[in-house]
């Protein structure tokens, strides 16, 4: 709070000082309009100044106002706000101050001042000597305003009211009865990022850079904790208090001939709570057979990452050749003190093999690129990339363990994961005409992941693309890619020993055939009008996978237009997009058994499949009319997004899968957003405006909707939920504002 007040005060002081130093500007500019980014070839003859002045993004202004939002009945106000703070009241919504001389520039910005999503930014540039900037950015995450919980939280320990546990344990009350009395609370997380950057040029070709970033996150978020394999999970609002501090510095020399740079980056993550303990609603007294009175779970550990790197490049070699190299070495570490096996005092926990995590990974990365253009029509490009993640953590082995704080389990042993990736890329581009490039390329990727079922994979990728740009009326880009990934799976007997199906493919390492194509097309029949279309298609097949993901296909396309009938004054456009993804996965039903294989484990009649489909539509329409009506700026926009996802099961004829196969309702999300922004320029320095936003969100999610997740209802008797779910909302926001320009 003190920091925010200080920054606001400093910014306002600088703004007022700058304002006194500035004379009034005579040009009357708008706040910038989204225009067509197509830049057709055109002459630039001398034009009257008033029509030819570009729209600079550095206009000084301060924007104050009054805002209020009305909600529809039972709207989810938290989801409407999600990453914003839309509280009612006065607003200082934007401050922009820019001072520009021939020696330096000074930029001060503030957004949403005084609200949870506020931002402050300052930058100073003494040209050719020093650049400094800082930013304070707050990003709220508003989960819910209607969550309920019986727990009280004290420094990572969540407790229940006295007597509740015993009453539930002794069945003198029910879960539904006690949960309905739980007090409501806001579940939020707040992220605050403070960053500062400095670039100092002791000489024209030398950069000394310092970077600092501190990210702080605090609040609570949903988490579940079970108390046994068949026991109910218990949803809690786990407190979080993270802090990540990043520091980086580099020294570099660069000229037209090349560059060299040395850098260091450090990142230090600290978690004030490395564990959470929460009371078991159904037990008040620890038991070695009936469960614990409390559960204990580790949270994100403190970690450090230190990396040094060197990079260099050579330009102006024969044949317009450029060489670039990058090499880095880093160490990741986590040496948190381990929490005990359990907090259940009735269980005889084994001794810990060690008291700290003692986790370390060494990371090496290198990247070498060579490009060459021996002829104007020919361009060559080659790259080699290597990444090695070497996990050097000693094994953590115990002859026995604890499960769910509930019972003593069998032996456990960690499996520190390491992997190495080698990638080689080569491309050749031929330009038969100045504005065309025809490219062919090849990539070979070899990945080693020794702890996975497919310890080594090789992938061969071929691609071809064509790019036609620079013509007045037309531009087009298209690419086609074919990739084949193969690898030898470990012995089937080993997989069976894990209790898994040998024909299961882990889709991130399984054999895969991939085809991908995409294209972007732009037609500009007139200077002021352009039409754009995009298309993309991706198909993945996993030929060796009988179970798991077997194929995945995505088809997306969009079409739209932009029109700029009057440059800097009238623009409008619309886009429609469609995105469909279909995936298929397979499995084989097998009931749990204590030893050996379940009866259906090897029976094809126990196979089942799930076909998922995800279809999204998006519409985007906008129109900006700046001073078309004298002294008035009008901005209109409408955005629509509609997505449906379905999951459909199927089984073989004669199936032995014990399912009724009742279909699941499709998951539906629809967002409508309409905005209107009108500003009347009373004078060249003062504008009065009105803003209106309409937002509506409808949702139907079969496992995140309000009905199944209502706390303590008959719909969820087996879980104690806090009521975080997906609910619809309708919101109308009205905003009156005054803007002062100078």
């Amino acid at each position, binding site marked *: 709070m003190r920091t925010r007040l200080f920054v606001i005060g400093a910014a306002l002081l600088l703004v007022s000082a700058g304002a006194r130093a500035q004379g009034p500007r005579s040009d009357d500019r708008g706040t910038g*309009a989204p225009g067509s980014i197509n830049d057709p070839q055109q002459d630039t003859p001398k034009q009257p100044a008033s029509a030819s002045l570009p*729209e600079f993004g550095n206009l000084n202004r301060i924007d104050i106002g009054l805002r209020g939002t009305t909600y529809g009945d039972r709207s989810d106000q938290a989801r409407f706000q999600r*990453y914003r703070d839309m509280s009612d009241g006065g607003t200082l919504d934007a401050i922009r101050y820019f001072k520009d001389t021939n020696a330096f520039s000074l930029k001060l910005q503030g957004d949403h001042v005084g609200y949870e999503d506020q931002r402050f930014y300052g930058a*100073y540039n003494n040209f050719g000597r020093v650049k400094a900037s800082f930013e304070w950015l707050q990003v709220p995450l508003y989960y819910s305003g209607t969550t309920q919980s019986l727990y009280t939280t004290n420094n990572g320990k969540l407790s229940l009211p006295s007597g509740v546990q015993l009453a539930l344990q002794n069945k003198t009350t029910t879960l539904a009865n006690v949960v309905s009395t739980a007090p409501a609370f806001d579940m939020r997380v707040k992220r605050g990022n403070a960053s500062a950057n400095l670039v100092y040029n002791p000489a024209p070709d030398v950069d000394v850079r310092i970077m600092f970033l501190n990210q702080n996150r605090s609040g609570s978020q949903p988490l579940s*904790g079970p108390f046994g394999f068949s026991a109910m999970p218990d949803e809690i609002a786990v407190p979080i208090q993270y802090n990540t501090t990043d520091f980086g510095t580099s020294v570099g020399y660069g000229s037209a001939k090349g560059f060299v740079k040395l850098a260091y980056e450090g990142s230090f993550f600290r978690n004030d709570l490395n564990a959470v303990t929460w009371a078991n609603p159904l037990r008040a007294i620890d038991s070695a057979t009936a469960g614990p009175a409390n559960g204990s779970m580790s949270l994100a550990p403190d970690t450090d990452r230190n990396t040094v790197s060197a990079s260099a490049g050579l330009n102006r070699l024969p044949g*317009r050749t450029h060489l670039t190299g990058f090499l880095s070495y880093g160490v990741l570490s986590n040496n948190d003190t381990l929490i005990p096996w359990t907090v259940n005092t009735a269980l005889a926990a084994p001794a810990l093999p060690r008291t700290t995590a003692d*986790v370390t990974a060494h990371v090496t990365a290198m990247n070498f690129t060579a490009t060459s253009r021996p002829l104007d029509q020919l361009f060559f490009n080659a790259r080699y990339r290597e990444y090695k993640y070497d996990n050097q953590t000693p094994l953590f082995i115990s002859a026995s363990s604890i499960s769910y704080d509930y019972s003593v389990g069998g032996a456990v042993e960690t499996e520190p994961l390491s992997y190495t990736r080698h990638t080689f890329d080569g491309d050749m581009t031929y330009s038969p005409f100045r504005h065309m490039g025809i490219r062919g390329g090849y990539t070979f990727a070899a990945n080693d992941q020794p702890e996975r079922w497919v310890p080594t994979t090789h992938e061969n990728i071929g691609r071809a693309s064509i790019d036609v740009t620079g013509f007045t009326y037309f531009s087009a880009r298209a690419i086609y890619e074919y990739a084949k990934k193969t690898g030898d799976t470990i012995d089937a007997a080993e997989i069976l020993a894990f209790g898994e199906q040998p024909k299961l493919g882990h889709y991130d390492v399984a054999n895969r055939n991939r085809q991908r194509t995409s294209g972007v097309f732009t037609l500009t029949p007139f200077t002021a009008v352009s039409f754009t279309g995009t298309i993309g298609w991706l198909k993945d097949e996993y030929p060796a996978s009988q179970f798991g993901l077997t194929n995945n296909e995505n088809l997306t396309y969009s079409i739209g237009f932009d029109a700029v009938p009057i440059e800097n004054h009238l623009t409008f456009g619309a886009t429609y997009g469609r995105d469909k993804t279909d995936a298929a*996965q397979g499995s084989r039903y*097998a009931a749990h058994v204590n030893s050996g294989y379940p009866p259906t484990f090897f029976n094809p009649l126990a196979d089942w499949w799930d076909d998922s489909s*995800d279809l999204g539509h998006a519409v985007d329409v906008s129109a900006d009319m700046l001073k078309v009506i004298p002294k008035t700026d009008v901005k209109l926009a409408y955005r629509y997004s509609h997505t449906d996802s379905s999951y459909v099961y199927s089984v073989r004829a004669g199936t032995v899968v014990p399912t009724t196969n009742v279909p699941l309702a499709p998951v539906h999300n629809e967002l409508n957003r309409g905005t209107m922004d009108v500003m009347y320029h009373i004078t060249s320095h003062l504008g009065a405006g009105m803003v209106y936003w309409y937002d509506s969100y409808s949702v139907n999610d079969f496992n995140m909707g309000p009905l199944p997740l209502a706390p303590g209802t008959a719909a969820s008797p087996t879980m104690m939920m806090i009521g975080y779910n997906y609910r619809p909302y309708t919101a109308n926001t009205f905003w009156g504002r005054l803007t002062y320009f100078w």
Partner: protein
Amino acid sequence: MWKRSDGNPARLLVTALVLVGVMAIGVGAANAGKSDPKPSGPAASDPAAGLVGNETCATCHESEGKSMEHSLHGKAQDSRTPSAKAGGSCESCHGPGQKHVDSGNKADIRRFNAISAREANETCLSCHNKNAHEQWQGSMHDARNVSCVSCHSAHSYKSEKAQLKTVTVVQTCETCHKQEAMKAQRSGHMPVREGKMECTTCHSPHGSTNVRMLKAGNTINEACTTCHAEKRGPYLWEHAAVTENCASCHDPHGSNNDRMLVAKTPMLCQRCHVSSGHPPTVYDGQQLANASNRMLGRSCVNCHAQIHGSNSPAGNRFIR
């Protein structure tokens, strides 16, 4: 190091940095008027080299001349800028202008929307070839003949930073990357449409050492964990799919599913876990009606809560 306490060293350091930064800016601004260098006025012409100077160019191209003064290209104090070079800011990029002045023919001067993308880029890269641009050569956009002037404008920019032709970064990127831009409107999304992030928060359009032109780190995970450091690990107990690639389970551009997952749980988890017992169970409407704790809410993660990895001795199944 950096361990928070009641004194909170990190917050004090942040406050101190803000204080120093504002003071430096204020001192710099206060001293600005004392030694303001000469304006970057019209550079001297050099007839022998075919250079005519900025003043001659501005005779016909007044608005371009004015815009140059306001941009970093026009700040002669920085000896690296075009305005500090022979010919001044115009002819440093557009080439000698004498022939164009004599003939009035636009073909007699270098125009960036008339030459090939690579030729245009070579002009820009003669200066912009280090730091943020040091990986441009051979990058995805370079390989696809994307020109600097496709996105940037030296004269008619609309953005607050980076001299883009559009007001925002997203508007620039979505011209070609429509699918990713549309996904930001879905229910599971990063705060892009709220203005807290933009494409360049994660990606470097000028190339990088990372895959997918990600700005930070050397892998997808290293990029994601610059903000989500709590998922960084390494952990005592690791989940292979997580350790190797966040995008195995999450769609960072947007998703119809909670937590930006590529598919809903439990189906997502069942793409890799078949075995016996609850993993290969058919979770249909009947299971939902029975309020199965493997279906409702976070589904599998109701029990396997530490799904990104666990530091607990009892975390072998990520339930602690």
